[in-house]
């Protein structure tokens, strides 16, 4: 981290706070809005992008006798539906690990499955596959793909190593930790260096990995900006304000 801090200061990040509390930024010319929910909105394509929903993570533990409240899928859907209602996207793109495991789709309660079907009414669902759900859903509406492009952007589940201009990905569940004399907060966050972006996990039970973790090393061309999820706005937090766990 000290090595990064010593590199010549690059131009400040260009971003703007949007009236909804989101943070707007361009990546390779594509206008994107980071939402306080953790979803990303592509303005040109009217596409809502969410990563790492981990549907039925609760019941995956439940099968092993650890009875986490079985409401995580419902909770994730509540928030997803609210985003769809607010933005009326034409496309909803799932960036992979939408399901916690290969059999999670079978464990969806009928109600929750119906809500996903209803979500596909009047719009397209695109399911990128991830390491947890390598086959994607079998019965739910929508298209299952490995990767896709969206204008100048390339979308995939797991970020490719090295600099990847235009890449949107998930998988790492980035979290920002900020300390001050009065306490410490640790929140899910978007992470971007202005050329690529890693989305926070959207799932109710998805844990988080500190942006200062070694897993993020080498992914960004310069110290990344964290878009930390606050109650109803996204806070742009600079690298210097972040601390490790």
């Amino acid at each position, binding site marked *: 981290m000290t090595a990064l801090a010593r590199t010549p200061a690059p131009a400040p990040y260009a971003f703007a706070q949007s009236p909804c509390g989101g943070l707007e930024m361009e990546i390779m010319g594509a206008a994107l809005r980071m939402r306080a929910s953790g979803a990303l909105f592509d303005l040109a394509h009217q596409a809502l992008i969410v990563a790492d929903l981990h549907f039925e993570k609760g019941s995956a533990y439940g099968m*092993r006798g650890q009875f*986490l409240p079985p409401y995580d899928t419902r909770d994730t859907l509540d928030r997803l539906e609210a985003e769809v209602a607010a933005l009326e996207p034409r496309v909803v793109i799932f960036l992979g690990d939408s399901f916690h495991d290969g059999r999670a789709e079978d464990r969806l309660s009928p109600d929750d499955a119906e809500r996903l079907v209803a979500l596909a009414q009047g719009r397209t669902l695109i399911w990128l596959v991830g390491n947890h759900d390598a086959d994607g859903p079998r019965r739910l509406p929508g298209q299952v793909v490995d990767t896709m492009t969206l204008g100048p952007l390339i979308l995939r589940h797991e970020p490719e190593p090295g600099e990847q201009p235009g890449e949107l990905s998930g998988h790492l569940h980035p979290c920002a930790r900020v300390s001050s*004399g*009065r306490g410490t907060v640790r929140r899910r966050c978007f992470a971007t260096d202005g050329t690529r972006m890693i989305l926070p996990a959207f799932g109710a039970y998805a844990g*988080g990995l500190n942006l200062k973790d070694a897993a993020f090393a080498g992914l960004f061309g310069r110290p990344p900006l964290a878009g930390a999820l606050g109650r109803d706005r996204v806070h742009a937090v600079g690298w210097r304000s972040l601390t*490790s766990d």
Partner: protein
Amino acid sequence: MAEDAALPADLLPAAFADWFATRGWAPRAHQLEMVARARAGRDALLIAPTGGGKTLAGFLPSLIELAQRPPANTPRGIHTLYISPLKALAVDVERNLATPIREMGLSIVAESRTGDTGAARRQRQRVKPPDILLTTPEQLALFCAWEGARAYFEDLSCIILDEIHTLHSTKRGDLLALDIARLQTFSPSLRRVGLSATVDDPDVIRRWMGFHPGGGDSAPPAVDLVLGPAGTPPIVEVLLSEGRVPWAGHTAQHAMAEVYEVIKKARTALVFVNTRFQAEFAFQELWRLNEDALPIALHHGSLAAEQRRKVEAAMARGELRAVVCTSTLDLGIDWGDVDLVIQLASPKGASRMVQRIGRANHRMDEASRALFVPANRFEMLECQAAREAIAENRFDGDPPRVGALDILAQHVMGCACSEPFDALALFDEIRTSGPYRGLAWEDFEQVVDFVSTGGYALRAYDRFRRIVKGQDGLWRARNADTILRHRLNVGAILSPAVLSVRIAGRGGRAGRKVGEVEEGYLEALEPGDTFIFAGQIWRLVGVTALDVLVTPAPASDPKLPSWGGSKFALSTFLAKRVRELMFDQSHWSVLPGDVREWLKLQRDRSLIPAEDEMLVETFPRGKRHFMVCYPFEGRLAHTTLAMLMTRRLERMGAAPLGFVCNDYALAVWSLNPMDGVDLDALFAQDMLGDDLEDWLAESYMMKRSFKGCAILAGLIERRFPGAEKSGRQVTFSADLVYDVLRRHEPDHLLLRCARDDAATGLIDVARVGHMLARIQGKIRHAVLDHLSPFSVPMLLEIGKERVPGAAGEMILAEAAEDLIAEASS
């Protein structure tokens, strides 16, 4: 029960009488009384001061029975089970018991079993039980979850509960009470013996130990009370410092030179402080003054276990002149040589102080000596009040406890691991334990459902039950894996996740371990900062998943993470005495001149409320307006009150900006004047209604207590075989689980548990409630032009206080502003 009660002369068998005689002792009245009660088959609680032969009194009946029992053809089970709150104490008692057994030539095997006992010995104890087994509540819970527990304990005649006053009002006590009920079922003739230090109300413990079924809280307890002799009253002095008593602060730095002089004159002194930070600070200060290089050591819960053992061993050998310590040494093994106990900063409660003072001088006929060193002016009042309460032999009491349902869930699972159970029979058994005597069938049913399926309205886990009801109507654990997982999560102790403090080696690798810190201890430090730990100054290099890496630092001015006050709140009893002392001017003569002067100034410039009144002051200062209230109800209750008051003040248009609390008072500051606020409305008792619920649901305290309940109840596992989960991961997922559960099933059993815990342990709702009732119509409002003498300590605390959890959004917003500043510079 009286000392001169006529006791039959043949109570002691000849061998025992001779043994007493050869030692030059006469059996004490309460020791014989315990033998008599046992002979009559009665349960008994013995209350006696330290040094009164209490432990021997507890064991004497068992030793006699064991000495007199006829030989048997087959191996016998455990005769007496001894439960200690501390592992070290169990081991110490094992050693002490060996003496009479050896000297009387008795053929009795007494062995301890703790978490540290080796596998071979544990295995042997299982196959060939000792006559007397000395262990802890956690080990007992494990025993009770064994397959075959019933047969193992069917010969049990006696259970001895030592230092029971430290356990009965806790969750560990809940679990212990449930296991005692279990043992009584296994062995119906089991006799219960409690050993306790002096307490305010022995009946609370007697009812905890056992009661007449159907008898309410007013029925006479079923457990006999035996009172030992009163010990010699301790000699307690308050240090009337020659320097001025500071207005605020918790370190007592002003008095350190005097403390050092006192240590020099004593043989061995225990220097008690209330927090680890204070321990580190006092240790550092004493060594700075230590021109004579007296052997002064440090002992607190964050030090590595080996290091603590070393200090304890040096102490036992009489090599130390002083140990600076926290509550880690409140209890424990006897060290004969301590002749002085020093309490640095406020004592918080009379009972805790008596316990600490009891650490000096374990001989009953000599008075223990103690010195209180107040760190600020309010503490001077508190120390005087505590000194007087102790002289009058008055104590603060623990209220009787209602057993927690998370602990009950753990117990139900444990019972299923041991053998199939019938729900109705288990319910009846549970209701014979003190803390659960009022358990409702509906709550029990809910707990069983929780254990089986998680107890959710959405029946998602009916296929994966942890306990299953068979066709015979009995409940059984699902399989061996379920049982194994339960065994790894037994116990009611929640240890916060700890990080090892290690010296950073080459390439940032972790080197030698210096000690352990609780997660969060170093939260406010950044790499490069310096801090004191284990009596040395270190520079923080970095924090990895499990280790805090440090290098020795020669810095002279270490940055300390946080000062904070005590985690113990000022007791209700002591608070009342402080208010009395404050109001009674004729009493002020016990106080030093500058504190008297301070009280007089307060009387003249504002006012001093009567014992049953509450003072509220309002005054402007700078661009702010202040309201300072003095309820004297302890920091926890004040924090709760301040959270609720600021919500109301907001609605009243005062625009409150912040608050600060200590054990005596709380201060709120605002944009608008608060002179005209309707105080009766502000402090109306309905404050504890919706406002409380709204605030609580969002508060970090609910998350914290939820996490605890979820672990104790088995929803979140402490550790998996082979893979220790780091505390951070537990915190994180527990918070997520809490949020989801609260949104989707707000009435769930565990949320009820968490709320009860938060209300009692973290926010002291009951105390706020009592206080609001107490001050109705008795609020004295002083409208002032400027601050009052009493308010100065409060205002000095502003800015030093951390408000955990509450300021999250603000911290993020500030970080975002930093970025803007960074970008525009």
